[in-house]
């Protein structure tokens, strides 16, 4: 390889590092002050691009000058900043004190809403942006041509870093941001100014994301997938750099830019995997990122959000369970459609139950549970389609694949806690997704695989429904038993106080790892059952949206309840199944529903049931 080629590669790595940093700096500043990991940061980035592809060409009609181009980019950033203000005022200030999981879900609700609104406003077709006047040519570096705009981008990152440094050290606003990032207590003492500080921070953060998006328009067309693709990269940068640390984000962006630029030469298809592996490695050595600091322990102990003291079922609960079971068994008396939906609900109930085993019982907020569901489905599906095995061994393999991958990823995951843990589970799920998506020869890539059919005896809808019912009910009964058993109690104990658990002789990490593996195996089993019920598998089974669906189910059911997630899965799937065909705006509806649940219904169906019973008694 020639030196000039390597140099150009390094330069393009610097250019993408620069872009990444601009976006990630906003995310990390917002996290530092508000302690909220804002999924909608990717939506701000996408909005920046869409606003810019609308505004900049209009400006360039007047005069094709570079100044107007950059004025348009800056105005786009400001417009997006105002969207940030809107989000802070209407949503975020209501959720600063709720548990992390609810915050993550609420901001994900905003992602869904923005996706639909963008489709409404700009349509589904990608919109190419104008090239930047004055920077359309190429520059020759040694003998290689390098686009002038990329060269310009290289300088944007350091310029933004310098401006942020000035802001943080030379203005009162910036000093407050730094103080709030370092010391939570101080924020409470701010009184009236706190609202201003938080709103201002959201303006700054969203504007930086918008700037990042607007600067991309000469390179990529504005498209409706930009939000999720950028948010995972931005998460990785902030997590590696240390959440809340702007210089850390800069350092991490440089590392990742180079890793991608050179990784693409060696492993062209799996640069994303390299990036996530870097993140896992950094977090194992420095659990708070390169320049981050450990979160100071909360002063006063608070009751954990999740399953408290699981009780045996009372009479009403037993009756309800019996009715539900009878309903499941009686479904084939209705039509085939009811059976199909019933089978799906059973499978999703097991997946949701296994997730709440982690979240509600263990305090392990996994944001990538669909990975184990999907890997179980692929494990079973590949055995049938590629190895020609029948259904039975494939269904045995599904939980093994789910459990083994959960054991592998969980080894790293359980070293962390809170938001870092959630980010790492998300990252691992994205790795699994990327592998399945890109390993086309084996997995069929985007299209997935068809022909995952049950054995002859279970081929009818009804027979398969009963098989699914038997397996999922057995698995759920088993997991419920584990929650009541010493192992489940130990996970709750470690969640309540890891220090106390350690001091009474519990190997906290080992138990959390075993719990993560068990939940992954149960999710894998659900995935295997799902594959045979559909007859096909595709990468959406591992995607973020499905992980969020699972989280919505347990939220809807009530994460403090042992059995609530079953009701949550049933209600969620029934509503989705009913509404999705009726509306083009399912995401808008879902996003608003998630936010409404977080704000007004945080204890879910189980909470409603309990208060209903409490009143009746």
């Amino acid at each position, binding site marked *: 390889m020639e030196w000039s080629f390597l140099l150009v590669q390094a330069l393009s790595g610097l250019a993408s590092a620069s872009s990444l940093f601009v976006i990630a700096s906003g995310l990390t500043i917002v996290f530092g002050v508000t302690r909220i990991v804002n999924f909608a940061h990717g939506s701000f980035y996408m909005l920046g691009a869409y606003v810019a592809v609308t505004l900049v060409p209009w400006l360039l009609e007047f005069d094709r000058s570079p100044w107007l181009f950059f004025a348009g980019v800056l105005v786009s950033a400001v417009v997006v900043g105002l969207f940030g203000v809107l989000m802070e005022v209407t949503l975020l200030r209501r959720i600063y004190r709720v548990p992390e999981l609810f915050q993550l879900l609420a901001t994900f609700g905003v992602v869904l809403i923005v996706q639909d609104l963008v489709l409404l406003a700009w349509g589904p077709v990608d919109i190419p942006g104008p090239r930047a006047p004055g920077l359309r040519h190429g520059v020759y570096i040694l003998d290689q041509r390098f686009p002038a705009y990329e060269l310009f981008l290289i300088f944007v990152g350091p310029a933004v870093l310098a401006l942020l440094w000035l802001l943080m050290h030379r203005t009162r606003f910036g000093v407050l941001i730094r103080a709030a990032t370092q010391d939570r207590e101080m924020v409470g003492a701010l009184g009236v100014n706190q609202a201003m500080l938080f709103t201002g921070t959201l303006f700054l953060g969203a504007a930086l994301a918008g700037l990042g998006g607007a600067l991309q328009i000469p390179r990529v067309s504005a498209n409706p997938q930009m939000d999720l693709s950028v948010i995972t990269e931005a998460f990785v940068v902030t997590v590696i750099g240390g959440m809340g640390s702007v210089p850390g984000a800069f350092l991490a962006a440089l590392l990742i830019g180079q890793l991608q630029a050179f990784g693409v030469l060696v492993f062209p298809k799996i640069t994303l995997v390299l990036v996530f592996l870097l993140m896992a490695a950094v977090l194992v050595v420095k659990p708070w990122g390169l320049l981050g600091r450990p979160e100071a322990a909360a002063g006063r102990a608070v009751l954990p959000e999740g399953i408290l003291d699981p009780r045996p079922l009372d009479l009403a609960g037993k009756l309800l369970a019996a009715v539900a079971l009878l309903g499941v068994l009686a479904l084939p008396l209705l039509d085939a459609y009811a059976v199909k939906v019933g089978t799906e609900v059973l499978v999703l109930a097991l997946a949701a139950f296994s997730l709440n085993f982690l979240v509600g019982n263990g305090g392990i907020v996994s944001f990538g549970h669909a990975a184990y569901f999907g890997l179980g489905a692929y494990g079973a599906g590949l055995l049938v389609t590629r190895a020609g095995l029948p259904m039975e061994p494939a269904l045995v393999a599904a939980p093994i694949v789910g459990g083994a991958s959960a054991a592998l990823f969980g080894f790293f995951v359980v070293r962390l806690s809170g938001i870092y843990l959630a980010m790492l589970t998300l990252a691992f799920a994205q790795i699994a997704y990327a592998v399945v998506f890109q390993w086309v020869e084996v997995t069929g890539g985007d299209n997935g695989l068809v022909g995952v059919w049950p054995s002859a005896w279970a081929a009818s809808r009804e027979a398969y429904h009963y098989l699914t019912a038997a397996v999922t009910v057995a698995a759920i009964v088993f997991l419920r038993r584990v929650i009541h058993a*010493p192992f489940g109690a130990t996970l709750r104990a470690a969640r309540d106080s890891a220090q106390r658990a350690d001091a009474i002789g519990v190997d906290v990490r080992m138990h959390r790892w075993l719990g993560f593996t068990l939940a992954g195996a149960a999710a894998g089993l659900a995935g295997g059952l799902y594959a045979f019920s559909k007859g096909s598998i595709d990468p959406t089974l591992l995607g973020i949206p499905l992980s969020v669906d699972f989280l919505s189910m347990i939220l809807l059911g009530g994460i403090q309840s042992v059995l609530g997630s079953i009701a949550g899965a049933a209600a969620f799937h029934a509503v989705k199944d009913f509404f999705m065909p009726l509306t083009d705006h399912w995401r808008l509806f879902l996003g608003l529903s998630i936010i409404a649940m977080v704000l007004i219904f945080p204890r879910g169906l189980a909470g409603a049931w309990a208060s209903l019973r409490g009143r009746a008694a």
Partner: protein
Amino acid sequence: MTLLSADGLTKRFGGVLAAKDVSFALNAGEMLAIIGPNGAGKSTTFNMVGGQLKPDGGRVTLAGHDITGMPPREVCRLGVGRTFQVAQTFLSFSVLGNVQMALIAHHGQTRRLLAEASAMHREAALALLDRVGMAAQAGRPIGELAYGDVKRVELAIALAAAPRLLLMDEPTAGMAPAERASLMALVSAIAQREGIGVLFTEHDMDAVFAHADRILVLVRGEIIARGTPEEVRADPEVQRVYLGHSGTRAAARARRAAHG
């Protein structure tokens, strides 16, 4: 017989030397108090003994075993129970459930998947709660208790490991004076009856002079004096640096109480 010995324990946090060459020994059934002003390094010393912190230098020996740098769970299994400066309990459990959990862990049953946890070790847990005077509250959620009662439950949790050594970091912090005296009397009775060694730190000089067999005085990470309560009380260096008037008065009160 020496139960616990610390030799030359040293710990540094950045520029702060939190513990410097701290050495002491503790016999079975003995109560050893570490006193000193805030930030003297008492909790740091505790955490090096209990395994929460790894010392930068020095050795900790428990009944002849080198336990330096062992994680807390292994230290616990060798017979060390501890309470924390800020009580650490399982908030979602009942009072009884907390002690049952400690017993489940003590018996190595935490990986059981099928047994009903709430039915295990009930009697033993109730007996432990009885020892600390909390049996009547067994069914309540622990989050509802007054802080002084939480500290008593924490003691029962620590005793569940059938410890040879109890580490108690400021056992009476945050308690009313009457509660303090009764908790310390309880600890000292348990220690004497069962031959458990107790290492504790305390701000309340009345409690220290009334119950400690020996006292170490720690100031800025260094031991400046050691000995029986009488010796420490009489030490001019201690009086000057640390005890001051209030300490001397407490010592006098304790002397009167002991002789009168």
